[in-house]
């Protein structure tokens, strides 16, 4: 899909903004005084941008209207291409390697860290926006800054988390008001749910989002991690083994078949009332809420952060939108100005609201956005980026951490123990062997 904004189309687009603007609630976004960086826009600048396709239709409409408004104010024409999620990594790679193509890409998670040599540093914009909007949240800082420095190479636009999704009636039936943070009590809850024939279920198959989300939670909540702060493989630890032993008991309570689950399976099982406790993004709740046939399930559904276990905070790493500007762009100032413009309240808040909670803000001030009052059950996603956990925790974000995630090292370590194919000791050694391969450089 592509969309070229021309001067002629601006009139229509502005009308859309006017119409769209009135549809969104007014948020009380507090700003601090900050000086905008001086970014003289290059003569005759035009921009091309890639970003992942929308979750919901208004996402795309508002995003385009925002870009149209930028065109209106600066005269810079902006073309936005919406790319399928599975393709954007490869398209970013091609753009970076060939030094041609889009000026700006909003990619996922680690992309700016892989192509750091090909990117324009965004310190001026990041500092201005950060100061103005109460500071960048921890996950945004982690994904935005080059490892161990204060240099911004990406501008996070939001993150999507996967907390626990559960049926209030089922938990109440077995004597719980909410899922507990304590691991032993959590296991007890799952055992009781299983006994009540309302089992929990978490993906242990090759599911990029849900599988890694569960496996990371399991290891992290026991104090384990794949690599240490220096990026040295550290999965072979007593904490990991303890976590896998815990999994053996936990897995016994799951609905059968979770080792074959993909990203969509838990959504289906939950909607079919075969699974009563799982972890997922907000999409599951909205799918249930918007379908009259499953509305009752949505009314009975609650969201809670993943159990903290042995940690002080809930270990969840949201999928992060991360914008980057390429050095090959002939218009770096215009690119930076566009990103800065899109993160300002008149643009960002309507976009956040249009996304209904699918994406959570990277900046402190937007916690006050009206989107988080739109539905109390969605409010929990507000803090997705207030997290100290990222894909590849606790190491530097790199090509290796991304590859280890995409190759399901953690998921398969867990699945091999759950299925009885390997002992916890064998499984961590195998994970260590595979991870060392990725982290050898």
């Amino acid at each position, binding site marked *: 899909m592509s969309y070229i904004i021309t001067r002629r189309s601006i009139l229509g687009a502005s009308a859309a903004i006017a119409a769209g603007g009135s549809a969104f609630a007014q948020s009380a976004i507090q700003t601090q005084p900050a000086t905008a960086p001086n970014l003289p826009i290059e003569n005759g600048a035009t921009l091309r941008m890639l970003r992942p396709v929308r979750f919901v239709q208004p996402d795309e409409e508002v995003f385009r209207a925002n870009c149209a408004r930028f065109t209106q104010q600066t005269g810079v024409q902006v073309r936005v291409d919406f790319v399928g999620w599975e393709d954007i*990594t*490869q398209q*970013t*790679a091609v753009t*970076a*390697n060939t030094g041609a193509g889009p000026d700006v890409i909003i990619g996922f998670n680690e992309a700016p860290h*892989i*192509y750091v040599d090909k990117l324009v540093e965004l310190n001026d914009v990041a500092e201005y926006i950060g100061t103005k909007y109460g500071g960048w949240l921890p996950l945004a800082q982690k994904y935005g800054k080059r490892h161990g420095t204060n240099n911004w190479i990406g501008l996070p636009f939001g993150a999507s988390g996967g907390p626990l999704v559960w049926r209030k009636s089922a938990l109440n039936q077995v004597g719980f008001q909410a899922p507990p943070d304590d691991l032993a009590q959590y296991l007890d809850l799952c055992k009781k749910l299983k006994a009540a024939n309302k089992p929990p279920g978490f993906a242990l*198959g*090759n599911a*990029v989002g849900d599988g890694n989300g569960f496996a990371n939670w399991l290891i992290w909540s026991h104090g384990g991690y794949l690599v240490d702060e220096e990026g040295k493989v550290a999965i072979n630890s007593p904490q990991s083994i303890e976590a896998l032993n815990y999994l053996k008991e936990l897995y016994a309570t799951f*609905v*059968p*078949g*979770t*080792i*074959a*689950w*993909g990203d969509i*399976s838990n959504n*289906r*099982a939950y909607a*079919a009332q*075969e699974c009563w406790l799982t972890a997922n993004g907000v999409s599951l709740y909205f799918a249930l809420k918007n379908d009259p046939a499953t509305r009752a399930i949505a009314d009975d559904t609650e969201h809670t952060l993943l159990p903290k276990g042995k940690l002080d905070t809930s270990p969840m790493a949201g999928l992060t939108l991360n914008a980057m500007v390429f050095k090959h762009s002939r218009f770096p100032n215009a690119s930076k100005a566009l990103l800065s413009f899109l993160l300002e309240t008149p643009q960002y808040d309507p976009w956040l609201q249009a996304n209904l909670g699918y994406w959570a803000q990277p900046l402190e001030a937007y916690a006050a956005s009206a989107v988080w009052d739109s539905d109390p059950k969605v409010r929990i996603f507000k803090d997705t980026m207030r997290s100290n956990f990222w894909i590849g925790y606790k190491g530097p974000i790199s*090509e290796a951490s*991304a*590859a280890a995630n*995409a*190759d399901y090292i953690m998921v*398969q370590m867990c*699945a*091999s123990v759950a*299925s009885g*194919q390997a002992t916890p000791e064998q499984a961590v050694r*195998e994970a260590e062997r*595979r991870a060392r*391969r*990725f982290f050898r450089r």
Partner: protein
Amino acid sequence: MSVTAAERWIRPAKQQSALVRLFDNKAFLIIACLLPAIGLLGVFLTYPLGLGVWLAFTDTTIGRRGVFVGLENFEFLFEDPIFWNAVFYSVFYTSVATVGKFALGLWLALLLNNHLPMKSLLRAIILLPWIVPTVLSAIAFWWIYDPQFSIISWVLIETGIRETNVDFINTAWPARWSLIAANIWRGIPFVAISLLAGLQTISPSLYEAAMLDGASAWQRFRYVTFPMLLPILAIVMTFSIIFTFTDFQLVYAITRGGPVNSTHLLATLAFQRGIPGGQLGEGAAIAVSMIPFLVFATLFSYFALARRKWQQGESND
């Protein structure tokens, strides 16, 4: 004036004759006519294949140009149990599925070769699994094998035969067999229709002669049908082995190589490592390691099944 004009007229005639001579040159013609074909083959076949082989000896990743690392990728794979599991399953999947496809396909072809009412319609229906795009049939099987929503499980539970869902793809061996079953279902039509074509070329007079000699139905199959079918059998089997060994879509859509990598074929493992995992060099090495297996399978079908001299009009050894 007319003299000079005549001279000027002669010169182009000399040039034309040079062109004519050029086009009369056999060597030039051969090159000129072959060039487009060689160009197409070079650009779309040799170059990608060569690039793939080259990548297998580098540590290229998505996002970074690699350097030549010699056999490092292969050394790693040699000690990688996941790779060996993929080798095992690729061979197992290919052999079992090929036997299944040929047994059932030949049987179906023999049935279809009889005179049946609505013969053409039946033959068209038989082709359906082959016509449906693989991804669509793979998604259908994905639902059929779903741990929660399998139609087979549902029927068995509704009829009281079972009390729990069938485990199709949640553990290693059931998953392996389930994928083989799906592959056989998909491959039968190709084998059946190809063998049916072979059967129709066998002259009825051979059967008449055999019947006059008092041959039984089994003897007619063993000594007339089977030997006459062998040449086409060899071709069809070669194709079938290649298609099965390099299968990707069924496995990727149904299990993605799971549970815990137990159903990875070499093709799916190469893709997983190369594209989502980003390790292009290693993925290419896995793909390159398929070549010896394919060459062996092709040579086997050709020489084991198709070397009989009667094809050249001589008797068997």
